[in-house]
């Protein structure tokens, strides 16, 4: 009930400000259209289908990753204080934020999937694959939104927050298999690419998009990684809320 209340408040704001949804989905759409057009010939095969997995993660970076910014507005207008001195569980406060970020991200993912459908992208693993993709994406949102919320509690203002996100998001995106298959990555970089948890998420999503079979080992690894990292940051943000209040 209390999580729903916080989620309801956040989502009301989101739907009254739809521009926040459409602005953050533009860069991934741009990437999808531009890279598919430019690189389809040189990369061969269905490049939009190949690149989609990475772009789905990029959408989560831009939507769930930036979700912590709303916390600064809440602090400025006093609602953060009002919520914190109420008898609401700290975990519900963070979960309300994660669910809002998830809805935000899923809307953007829906837009990206519709556009990619018109670019001949199909989910080869079928109905099961779609469900597994949804689970995988939700776990990723859980981690990224929890990380974003923790940072918003830790960093002093929005400018520092944006600087921090911009500094890390693109390097993390590039040091992964988002744009290039693992085997094409120079040997010296492969260690770092493997170390990047999002590489495994992208690989799993790509398996579900491109292949007719489900690589359960890959799927399990990616889900576990996101759940473990998400739980760590979820608990960190709760601890920070307890510490602040």
């Amino acid at each position, binding site marked *: 009930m209390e999580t729903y209340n916080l989620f309801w408040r956040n989502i009301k704001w989101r739907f009254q400000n739809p521009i926040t949804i459409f602005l953050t989905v533009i860069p991934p759409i741009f990437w999808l259209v531009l890279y598919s057009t430019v690189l389809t010939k040189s990369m061969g095969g269905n490049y939009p289908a190949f690149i989609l997995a990475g772009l789905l993660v990029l959408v989560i970076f831009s939507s769930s990753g930036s979700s912590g910014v709303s916390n600064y507005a809440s602090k400025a*207008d006093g609602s953060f204080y009002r919520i914190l001195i109420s008898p609401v569980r700290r975990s519900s406060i963070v979960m309300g934020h994660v669910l809002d970020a998830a809805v935000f991200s899923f809307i953007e993912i829906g837009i990206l999937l519709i556009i990619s459908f018109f670019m001949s992208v199909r989910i080869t693993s079928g109905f099961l694959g779609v469900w597994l993709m949804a689970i995988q994406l939700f776990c990723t949102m859980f981690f990224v939104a929890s990380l974003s919320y923790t940072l918003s509690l830790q960093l002093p203002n929005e400018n520092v927050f944006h600087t921090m996100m911009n500094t890390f998001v693109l390097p993390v995106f590039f040091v992964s298999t988002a744009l290039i298959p693992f085997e094409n990555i120079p040997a010296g970089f492969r260690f770092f690419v493997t170390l990047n948890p999002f590489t495994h998420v992208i690989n799993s999503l790509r398996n579900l998009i491109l292949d007719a079979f489900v690589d359960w080992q890959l799927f399990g690894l990616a889900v576990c990684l996101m759940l473990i990292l998400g739980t760590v940051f979820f608990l960190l943000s709760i601890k920070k809320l307890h510490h602040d209040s």
Partner: protein
Amino acid sequence: MEAISVQHLTKIYRNGKKALDDLSITVQEGELFTLLGQNGAGKSTLINTLTTFLAPTSGSVKVFGEDLQQKPASVRKQIACVAQHTSIDNHLSLTENMLFQSRLHKLDHATATKRIAELIESFGLGAYTQHRVFTYSGGIKRRLDIAMSMVSHPRILFLDEPTVGLDVESRKAVWDILEKIRREYGTTIFMTTHYLEEADVLSDTICIIQDGHELVQDTPKNLRQYTRQNLIQINLKSTANMAWFEELLAGSPCVAAIQSSDHTLVATVNDREQGLVTINRHLMEHAIPYQSIGIIEPSLENVYLTLIHAGK
């Protein structure tokens, strides 16, 4: 019964600033308690600590006998706070804002709906339910802020400078609401303010703090005795000879200090009767036209300034 008991409370921020310094106060159930102090005296830090937002560095705080640090969740159920800046969500309607607050306090829908209707009626907000919240004036927003805080029927309502920035009419409306809250709900009210008149009119108890430490805590009436000032007020008919007469009185051995404003002089004298006779004689001898002369009680402002000055 003691609503709030604060003993030797100290709060030191990470940057080393000591905002509260061995502060001890007691607030009785059902009273309106006002905290007075200059900017940076520690008023907001104290409210933030009492509302569980900040953790104290040392000392103890009990709310209705429950330790704030050991049972913060239990304390949160019994309190509400109207912060210095209104904390209304502009994207929600008036009713939605109140519903959101009621759900934060886990009220069931039927109870919440009933209380919201009562509060809208009681606080004169009925005419505004159809308007967008961001179009409200500062006074109406403040009224809604207080109404939201009352939806959980808190046992203690904290208000951090609730009338700052409001016009005279809106301020009076907030005063009426606070009186109503005490009368109809029996809520203990803990308030900070810069307005001495407000503290004087509304409070049962006033506490003056400076540099995070309490200087004095008492009723407004008793506080006036702290100054032990003997004041004589002279209302002159004109300001023609005022400067000259002020200088004359300042040189008189029985006058310790003198203040002037408009047509009025207020002399602090060592002995009331002697001072009255001496000043009266000066007025007669120099044929100064005046409307009245008399011994006056010190105002809360006199008390405040005297104590703050003594504290320094």
